[in-house]
């Protein structure tokens, strides 16, 4: 059964230590070919009869064996549907894993897809295919040899078992190919193989190119230091490791975020950025102090110059000259330059192809939708099909002599400006999993008609007799909370919050659970929502609709008339909601003095209690912040936006909110008490005071002093801040305060000290999310924890592991952030569609003042946009920027922060970039500038 071989490897851990590990060679590693008589494969996937691709080179049926380089570079092609029946060697996968975690994940996903018929052959543990490294052989050569030996074994194995199937080794390495040919192996480069595929010529574009070195190009960028040198230099402190963040405003500037440091390192120009792309992990060398600069304050977009090398270098020189002008800067930021890349974090980017004036050109520039990504050069023969389309492109390399990185085409999404396409773009760009639920997930759903069994009823408290109702926004189908109130004899109230019991349907470890965990949250776009759980659950079985029996997780308090919590308990229950109201309906019932039925009375009492709760919260220093939120009324047929509606706030909103907060806090306390190490909580760190700088400066302009030392002081001083002539001023301030805040995040209780649990915005020492399990995965976890704490459920290991929970938290935080961004992008996309055919005049307020632009918010539509202060012919106007007063002055016109302006909203249409909203300043009128 076991054969053993030991091998020796050296690892670095302080010094060099010799590690001896066992390495068992087996004779039960099977080939994975269907119908193989000598192997005992249980999961054979490779079909020897299958002729999967039409190829000039390999007309017979064949299996391909890609080598490491091919997997890493050509993953896009391997993911294509027409590439099937491939054998992945363990050697290859191990190398891929080492080189790129993301590629490894992708190839593993592809292998897991039964459609692809990919098979992993554990050649390193196979008796006949294991080889030992020769004396003078480098590890790379050894691995190449291992790949050849395995391919050879397969070849022989196929012959021995009378299969007519060829084994084709794919390698781009010339030497390896030669040796393979000597071994009588059928070997092609990826290029040859793909070229010969007759039925899918579009694959060509996806080939990651080998790049010819153009001699004529002079060197544009400095060379990177080798990785070994970087590592030792980082250890020695000469270099700093960090993540590169390109500036959103100016493509020539960026920051490097250093882990654990508050201050980012400023990277001032393209030379210093040195080919780093957004999110790359880079090594930075600090510049001497006298060379430190600060962001220019300019808003700069890359100009669309094509293959013109002169222009490129000229552009670089320009920036250099600009920098020299400002030789001494008072409040300079620590600046540095990128000298090496530790890890690229490239991903496929959405964007558009820029037209090339030369009609026969094959090289094109690609512009990503994310403006922090530089232009990417790609090679394509189907440019005519791609122009005007949203496409996805992957980056392959960025050479020193190139102004732009090289990439290849991956996929076409659809025409620019098309609603569906644009929605898809923003989903992809924000990494939102939006595919249909897989069959495996759907199989986990309960079968209809779903009925409550006696067993269920036994384990749950029957609360169907209570007068429970739900209050939600209009059109809401995923109702995850409902309320009830009963007056008790002692004058107190029994108040219950009933939350949809999603964790009853989503059991840990099932396909549906894994999928929900991955999605993390439901994403609400302007016209649709991307569900976290399949619709059957979200809109039916879990949704607490009226007049049907539903499972709920109830949190029931006894509250005094002053809304003090006397007692709280939790129970799994069965409820029957009496009514599902919208906020407006509920408000009407409260206000309608004629109505005196059960529901009306309890709603009114709830309202009173909620106001008491709200007051208590505000007294403790909870902030009430503002953000301009708008919604679209969408045509149900065409999905075109019909009308912009601002979210209205009613008492009932706050009613529901207060009880949800109370439920969340009560649950947080409970699960923390039971699981001090692994409770999933939510915290909102108090922002560092430096975050308020801009706010304070802006407020000071209007002679308002804000106290930001604590949440309480902030909320009091905010309440007092008002300007006579500007009724919107307070809201503006609150909007700005919102931007000073930190992100609230999920975390695992075991990873932080108790005092760090606090939620700044809500001014509560502990908080979690419990009330929306239909749309948030965090709530499902909290439900599970709570269920265990009352003995209604069992634990599973990952739930009890601190690091696993924290890992999940990090993932959920990421998904939530992305969902928010996607939501915002979706709103602005619809705003654009809304204004497409109209020109509107509206008043707005200046939020920020830049050197050459102002940022204006239009409260009515929640639109925020930058207005470049250019004259009609495009030249910049000589505005004088007063940094102290945050104003721009030109002649007799002064634009200051918080000023009211009148703007014209229109959609500017541009062939290349698609359309975007454009604001024009109407008032105050700037001559030759405003229309």
């Amino acid at each position, binding site marked *: *059964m*076991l054969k*053993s071989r*030991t091998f020796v490897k050296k690892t670095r851990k302080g010094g060099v*230590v*010799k*590690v*001896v*590990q*066992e*390495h*068992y*060679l*087996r004779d039960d*590693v099977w080939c994975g070919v269907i119908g193989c008589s000598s192997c005992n494969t249980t999961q054979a996937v490779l079909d020897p009869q299958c002729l999967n691709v039409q190829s000039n080179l390999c007309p017979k049926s064949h299996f391909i064996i890609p080598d490491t380089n091919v997997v890493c570079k050509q993953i896009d092609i391997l993911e294509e549907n027409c590439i099937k029946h491939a054998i992945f060697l*363990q050697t290859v996968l191990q190398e891929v894993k080492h080189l790129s975690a993301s590629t490894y994940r992708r190839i*593993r996903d592809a*292998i*897991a897809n039964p459609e692809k018929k990919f098979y*992993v052959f*554990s050649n*390193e*543990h196979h008796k006949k295919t294991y080889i030992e490294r020769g004396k003078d052989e480098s590890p790379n050569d050894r691995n190449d040899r291992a790949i050849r030996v395995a391919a050879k074994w397969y070849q022989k194995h196929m012959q021995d078992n009378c299969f007519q199937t060829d084994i084709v080794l794919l390698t781009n390495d010339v030497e390896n190919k030669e040796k393979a040919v000597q071994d009588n192996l059928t070997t092609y480069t990826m290029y040859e193989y793909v070229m010969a595929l007759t039925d899918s010529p579009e694959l060509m574009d996806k080939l990651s190119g080998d790049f010819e070195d153009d001699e004529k190009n002079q060197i544009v960028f400095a060379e990177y230091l080798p990785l070994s040198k970087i590592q030792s230099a980082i250890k020695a402190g000469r270099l700093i490791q960090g993540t590169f963040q390109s500036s959103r405003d100016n493509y020539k500037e960026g920051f490097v975020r250093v882990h654990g440091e508050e201050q980012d390192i400023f990277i001032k120009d393209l030379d210093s950025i040195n080919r780093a792309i957004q999110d790359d992990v880079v090594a930075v060398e600090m510049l001497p102090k006298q060379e430190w600069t600060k962001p220019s304050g300019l808003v700069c977009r890359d100009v669309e110059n094509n293959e013109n090398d002169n222009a490129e270098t000229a552009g670089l020189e320009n920036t250099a000259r600009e920098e020299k002008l400002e030789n001494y800067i008072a409040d300079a930021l620590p600046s540095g330059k990128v000298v090496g890349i530790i890890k690229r974090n490239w991903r496929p980017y959405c964007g558009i192809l820029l037209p090339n004036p030369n009609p026969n050109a094959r090289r094109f520039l690609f512009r990503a939708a994310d403006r922090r990504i530089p232009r990417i050069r790609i090679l394509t023969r189907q440019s005519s099909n791609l122009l005007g389309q949203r496409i996805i492109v992957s980056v392959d390399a960025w050479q020193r002599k190139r102004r732009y990185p090289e990439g290849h085409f991956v996929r076409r999404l659809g025409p620019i400006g098309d609603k569906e396409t644009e929605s898809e773009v923003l989903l992809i760009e924000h990494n939102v999993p939006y595919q249909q639920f897989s069959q495996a997930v759907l199989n986990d759903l309960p079968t209809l008609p779903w009925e409550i069994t006696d067993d269920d009823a036994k384990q749950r408290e029957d609360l169907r007799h209570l007068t429970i109702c739900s209050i939600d926004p209009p059109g809401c189908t995923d109702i995850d909370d409902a309320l009830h109130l009963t007056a008790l004899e002692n004058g107190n109230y029994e108040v219950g919050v009933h939350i949809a019991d999603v964790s009853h349907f989503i059991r840990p*470890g099932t396909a549906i659970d894994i999928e929900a965990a991955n999605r993390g949250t439901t994403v609400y776009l302007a016209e649709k929502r991307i569900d976290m759980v399949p619709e059957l659950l979200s809109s039916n079985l879990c949704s607490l609709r009226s007049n049907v029996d539903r499972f709920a997780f109830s949190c029931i308090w006894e509250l005094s008339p002053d809304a003090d919590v006397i007692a709280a308990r939790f129970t799994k229950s069965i409820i029957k909601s009496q009514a599902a109201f919208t906020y407006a309906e509920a408000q009407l019932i409260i206000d309608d003095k004629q109505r005196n039925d059960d529901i009306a009375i309890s709603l009114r009492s709830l309202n009173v209690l909620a106001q008491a709760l709200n007051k208590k919260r505000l007294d403790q220093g909870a902030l009430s912040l503002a953000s301009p939120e708008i919604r679209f009324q969408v045509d149900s047929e065409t999905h075109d936006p019909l009308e912009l509606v601002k979210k209205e706030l009613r008492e009932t909103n706050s009613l529901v909110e207060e009880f949800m907060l109370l439920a969340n806090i009560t649950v947080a306390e409970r699960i923390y008490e039971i699981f001090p190490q692994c409770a999933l909580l939510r915290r909102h760190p108090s922002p560092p005071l430096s975050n308020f700088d801009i706010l304070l400066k802006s407020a000071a302009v209007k002679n308002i002093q804000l106290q930001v030392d604590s949440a309480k002081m902030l909320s009091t001083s905010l309440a007092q801040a008002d300007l006579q002539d500007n009724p919107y001023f307070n809201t503006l301030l609150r909007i700005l305060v919102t931007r000073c805040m930190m992100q609230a995040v999920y975390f695992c209780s075991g990873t932080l000290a108790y005092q760090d649990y606090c939620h700044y915005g809500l001014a509560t020492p502990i908080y979690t999310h419990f009330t929306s399990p239909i749309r948030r995965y965090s709530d499902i976890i909290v439900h599970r924890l709570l269920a265990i704490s009352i003995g209604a459920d*069992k*634990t*599973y*290991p990952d739930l*009890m*592991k601190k*690091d*696993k929970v924290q890992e999940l938290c990090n993932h959920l935080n990421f998904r939530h952030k992305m969902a928010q961004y996607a939501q915002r992008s979706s709103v602005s996309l619809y705003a654009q569609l809304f204004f497409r055919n109209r020109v509107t005049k509206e008043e707005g307020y200046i939020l920020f003042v830049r050197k050459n632009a102002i940022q204006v918010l239009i409260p009515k539509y929640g639109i925020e946009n930058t207005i470049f202060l250019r004259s009609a012919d495009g030249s910049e106007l000589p505005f004088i920027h007063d940094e102290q007063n945050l104003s721009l002055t030109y002649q007799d016109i002064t634009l200051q922060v918080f000023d009211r302006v009148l703007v014209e909203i229109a959609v500017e249409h541009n062939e290349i970039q698609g359309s975007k909203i454009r604001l024009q300043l109407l008032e105050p009128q700037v001559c030759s500038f405003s229309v």
Partner: protein
Amino acid sequence: MEIISPEGLRIDGRRPEEIRRFNCRLGVLSRADGSAYLEQGNTKALASINGPHQAGDKAKIKHDRVHINFQYSMATFSTNERRNRPKGDKRSIDISQLMREIFQSAILTDLYPKSQIDIHVQILQADGGNYSACINAATLALMDAGVPMKDFICSCTASLVDSKTIIDVNNSEELHFSNPLLTLAILPTSEEIILCQMKSRLHADHLEDILKAGIKGCKDIYEIMHREVLNHVREAAAVMNAT
């Protein structure tokens, strides 16, 4: 790092419920009353028995049973980085104490009142499952010394990785501290559990699985140990009969 690959192989090529290569030999030291050398993969242990003999220390003489003196040590060269103290550190002392109790439960101690049995086990190379190897080696050495015991004591480790149980955990797998590590010792015929030691946290729901896997590992090891002891006796018998 993947401890179990999606193909179902562990880092060293074993399947989850396979033990490592197990080699053992009895009677390797001529001057000891009993001795055994054992290899569990790359974990190598040498055990020697002295006694039963007159208890040296008067205080340790027990009038109704034998006194067991257990010494666990690790050779300075046994780990990747050289150890400073081969024995006498807190861990070794704790382990020795634990082992003493384990063997007290299997040796028929009441047969040898007032005497003492010294068991010395040295780990020559440590590659995971040191305590298991120590227990197994000591058992074999006791067999060799002809010390009467209720049964073999067979030991094996087990762990839970991504809800899959693995047995006979090696060093590279042990290094994942977050995974629970169960060291189990049983009397194989009665499946009586003599030692059940757990590192890290494991939820009670999974205890049964991991115990089951551990017991299977112990029994696999028992098979080999039993075979080896029988071989040893047979060899001796062959020689005896020849003369």
